[in-house]
């Protein structure tokens, strides 16, 4: 299991476009990937799940992956968060 903590850096938070981006990235990997915010834990391969997390600016999110390509999956998602989902 690979785990990494990220902070949301884009002002708008995770709305529809970033979540589509996350799902697209997550679906490229075979591992089970989850995002955790407070007590909520959702599947990173589901758009509605990610949107309903309601992750706003400066939220702290845990990315958790489990599977054969967990390292690469977490790295790719962290990069997405760090790049502010190519926004701003």
């Amino acid at each position, binding site marked *: 299991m690979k785990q990494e903590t990220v902070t949301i850096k884009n002002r708008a938070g995770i709305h529809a476009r970033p979540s589509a981006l996350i799902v697209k990235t997550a679906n490229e990997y075979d591992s089970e990937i989850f995002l955790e915010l407070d007590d909520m834990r959702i*599947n990173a391969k589901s758009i*509605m799940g990610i949107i309903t997390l309601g992750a706003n600016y400066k939220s702290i999110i845990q990315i958790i992956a489990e599977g054969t390509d967990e390292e690469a999956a977490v790295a790719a998602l962290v990069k997405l968060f760090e790049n502010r989902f190519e926004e701003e």
Partner: protein
Amino acid sequence: MINKFTALNLIDLDLKDHNALNLRCLAGRKGLNRIITDPEINRPGLTLSGFFEEFAFHRIQLFGRGELAYLRMLEETNRMDAVEKMFTHKISCCIFSHSGIPGDRFLDIAEKSGCSILQSDLSSSELELRLIRALSDIFAPRKTIHGVLVEVFGIGVLITGGSGVGKSESALELIERGHRLIADDSVVLRSVNGNFLMGSGTNEMLGHNMEIRGLGIINISHLFGVGSIRDKKQIQLLIELETWDSNAVYDRIGTGDAYKEMLDVKIPLIKMPVKAGRNVSILIEVAAMNERLKKLGYYSAQEFDNNVLKWLESKNARNLYSNNNDIF
């Protein structure tokens, strides 16, 4: 349990009709962000009289007419030391029932200590009842899981399964056939008194939307009408969709009762293999009806088994006669 439930959250609770708390803040606005850690309620009569042993200060303090009258008497006779001592504790919040308004000195002391004072127009017993109901709901053990919750013929059916197995598509077909959507994708489960599971969506503000591959995000209440949605529903049946595995052994008779335990509540489980040519939503519909029938006391598979046994028994009896040809 949600973390950090504050007094402000308590006022903000969107409860309707016979659940409404009708709270408003009288003083101590700063204290509205104090976290309520205990789902119970304390009547501070003893505390006001100066008895502080076992004072449950972390609970919500509920002041009824009696407490209010006592407070007035304390204020008139200038004996506010018990009140001052009371507010040296970190009280989560105080609520006055019957629209009671405490004296200015009480409000001053509360304001200074940073404790919020709320008021409601309900009677004490009714307010206490509603508070306990609301708080036990909030403090109930909860868990968010991946799945779709639909109501089929009055039975709350939770459909789970891996990504892309067709949960949302099956649910959409069920909605199209007149059933109701409670939550798609992330379902929040709450264990109510450890007796049953209540399922709801994660976010009421975002409403009843579904994501269907190829269609994108669709709004169910607008597409299918308000009759096609529901806010919460008890989970009575769990259906696990899985891709058809020709090597796996599936239940062929249906007398083997399978259960899954979630938050210490046992839910009947059906493992449903999915493959082309199997209309999953109709299977789910029938499974729900069968579950209803079971609740009404008729267990199809077991009745059938009993009938087979009876029939075999009667055949045995018949054979007994027909084989005894030496009687005549």
